[in-house]
């Protein structure tokens, strides 16, 4: 289907009962399921408004990651409750990118060890858990106590933030890298690099193809940055209306 043209002149924010709303001219923005678009954080609303104001002649929905995340939080299209989201997130630990190691080629195995061991060690220390890594096709053997620790920790986040966390984990294919981001231990650029370590290794050896590699890299950076920002903006108690963040 052809892209929608930009049909509004002005984008503004207003504060309603349900939170901060986005106005496109005189129209209030709605979610795909026709709910009123209202977010609990003013900073988040400003960033969403900026996405809409950045559209030139046509609306490129694939560039509006924060809007998409808000729509997911408001509509909850997969109909998952908090515990289901948490369990989905923690399940990723069993196939966490940074725990899955190769034995060959030696150069890649060495790179994985040098780049991934420190972040695994950080997570083990920060959360007081055992994680480890494995070259087995079955992946690492994560103790139940480790999983429970992460379940408990994630339960302290509200539903909106959890949608964001699960989104980042899905993009990076790693719970550990995602927690590194949420805890501000690593930057988005670093997290994406670590997530794409094997691709980067191949690119170093064989060269980069802009329309594929750079395209994928930019998209992953954009989505990961959006998810991370979304989590932080939805978790700040000073900017958030708690009654709106129903668990």
């Amino acid at each position, binding site marked *: 289907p052809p892209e929608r043209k*930009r049909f509004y*002149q*002005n*984008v*503004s*924010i207003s504060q309603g009962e349900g939170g901060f709303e986005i106005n496109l001219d005189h129209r209030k923005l709605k979610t795909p399921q026709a709910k009123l678009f209202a977010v609990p954080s*003013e*900073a988040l609303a*400003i*960033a969403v*408004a*900026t996405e809409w*104001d*950045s*559209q*030139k002649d046509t609306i*490129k929905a*694939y*560039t509006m*990651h*924060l809007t998409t995340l808000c729509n997911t939080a408001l509509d909850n299209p997969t109909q998952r409750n908090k515990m289901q989201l948490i369990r989905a997130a923690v399940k990723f630990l069993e196939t966490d990118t940074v725990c899955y190691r190769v034995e060959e080629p030696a150069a890649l195995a060495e790179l994985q060890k040098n780049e991934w061991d420190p972040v695994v060690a950080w997570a083990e220390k920060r959360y007081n858990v055992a994680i480890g890594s494995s070259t087995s096709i079955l992946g690492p053997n994560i103790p139940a106590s480790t999983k429970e620790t992460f379940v408990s920790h994630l339960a302290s986040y509200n539903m909106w933030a959890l949608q964001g966390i699960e989104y980042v984990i899905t993009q990076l294919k790693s719970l550990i890298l995602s927690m590194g981001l949420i805890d*501000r*231990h*690593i*930057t*988005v*650029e*670093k997290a994406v690099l670590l997530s794409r370590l094997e691709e980067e290794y191949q690119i170093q050896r064989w060269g980069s193809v*802009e*329309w594929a590699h*750079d*395209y994928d890299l*930019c*998209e992953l*950076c*954009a989505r990961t*940055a*959006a998810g*991370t*920002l979304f989590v*932080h*903006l939805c978790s700040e108690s000073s900017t958030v209306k708690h009654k709106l963040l129903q668990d």
Partner: protein
Amino acid sequence: MAALGPPLRTLRGLLRELRHASDRAGRPYRETPAYQHIVAAFRAHRVTSEKLCRARQELHFQAATYLCLLRSVRRHAALHQEYHGRGERSPEEVAGLVGFRLPQQPGGKG
């Protein structure tokens, strides 16, 4: 802690991206809510100084993350336009990509 570099560089990068983003809007980028919010936040936390402070580090990390978002979206959109924006190619174009020409078959494929 994440290696963020000098806060001033992050702020400059952010303002540059906001300028790009608001090219289309009628009003100057300095009047946009995003610009005003970011400048006010940096001013309030004096992020441009080097002193350590948790709130400052949190704000700087947020700013760096937002900068990454704006930059990546802009680059991705540019790559999309350049490589994927032309829609589907015709069979003639596809043949041309690998140096062939489609045969002329006036009676159809038969």
